């Protein structure tokens, strides 16, 4: 039988008081705390090779990670991490130094997320032309898309810099993606010290009032999903059941 792995954490002085009561994981299996190389891992027994992406499973994964968040800041594993005990032991042994460094980086911190949508027609350059032939109209449309895209990219840079200035001094680390999807211009993740989270929220709330043309989605606190990457080679494959 394999293990489904939720997160790892520094071996705490308090042995995960949150798990004193049984925590139910993926497929209804109880969550266990196991130790490898001096690190604590939250796992549950798992039959099968892969976890289904369902609303219940996704929320369960997150809730298990969050079950220890009040006590410590864990490094979450990506959804679907199903491994043998040997694979897990090998992974921890091989990457122990990097994992400990990463745990030190996120210690005492939480992740906040800001997504920004620019709801404007300014992303389109000029207006559509009805007076052109099919070929010229096609080229004109392409030109509009290119120049509009450049304009959008420039706006994304400006907004990203503006956001960084608003939260300056409250953020320990940030990951920013510009124009990650067609609709978003900025997706920012901030690693914030726990005592600073309320101040961070207040500052972002004040800042967004000054940008009525932007649509904000602020969420958190999260376990540091974004800041857990230790730059392993990753290939995620979506299978279809």
């Amino acid at each position, binding site marked *: 039988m394999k293990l489904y*792995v939720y997160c*790892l954490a520094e071996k705490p002085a308090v042995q995960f008081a949150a798990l004193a009561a049984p925590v139910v994981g993926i497929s209804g299996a109880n969550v266990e705390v196991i130790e490898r190389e001096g690190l604590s891992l939250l796992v549950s027994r798992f039959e099968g*090779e*892969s*976890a*289904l*992406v*369902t*609303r*219940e499973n*996704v*929320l369960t*994964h*997150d809730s298990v990670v969050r079950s220890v968040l009040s006590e410590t800041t864990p*490094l*979450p*594993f*990506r*959804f*679907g*991490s*199903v*491994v043998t005990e040997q*694979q*897990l032991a090998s*992974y921890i042994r091989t990457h122990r130094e990097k*994992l400990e460094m990463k745990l030190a980086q996120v210690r005492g911190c939480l*992740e906040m*997320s800001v*997504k920004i*949508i620019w*709801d404007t027609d300014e992303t389109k350059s000029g207006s559509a032309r009805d007076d052109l032939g099919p070929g010229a109209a096609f080229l004109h449309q392409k030109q509009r898309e290119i120049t509009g895209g450049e304009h959008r990219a420039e706006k994304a840079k400006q907004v990203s810099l503006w956001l960084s200035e608003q939260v300056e001094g409250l953020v320990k680390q940030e990951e920013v993606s510009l124009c*990650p*999807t067609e*609709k*978003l211009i900025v997706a920012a993740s901030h690693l914030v010290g726990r005592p600073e989270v309320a101040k961070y929220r207040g500052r972002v709330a004040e800042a967004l009032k000054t940008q009525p043309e932007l*649509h904000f*989605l602020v*969420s958190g606190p*999260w376990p540091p*999903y*974004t800041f*857990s*990457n*230790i730059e*392993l*080679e*990753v*290939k*995620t*494959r*979506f*299978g*279809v*059941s």
Partner: protein
Amino acid sequence: MSEQLEQIDILEQSDVSLLETLDHVLNRGLVIAGEITISVADIDLIFIGLNVLVSSVETANEVVRKRG
């Protein structure tokens, strides 16, 4: 675009939370093996028309298109 924003505005907080959770849980975090296999089975994860926020949802839509 404005129609999509209206759709976002009428989302329940729990729906927004789910979208954000999908984004974090599916796209980020430690990866043990070189490859993770996960399966999409539950259609209610896919918010047709609301995929303005989360790249995971776009990924799921791509899977649905391939299935279709």
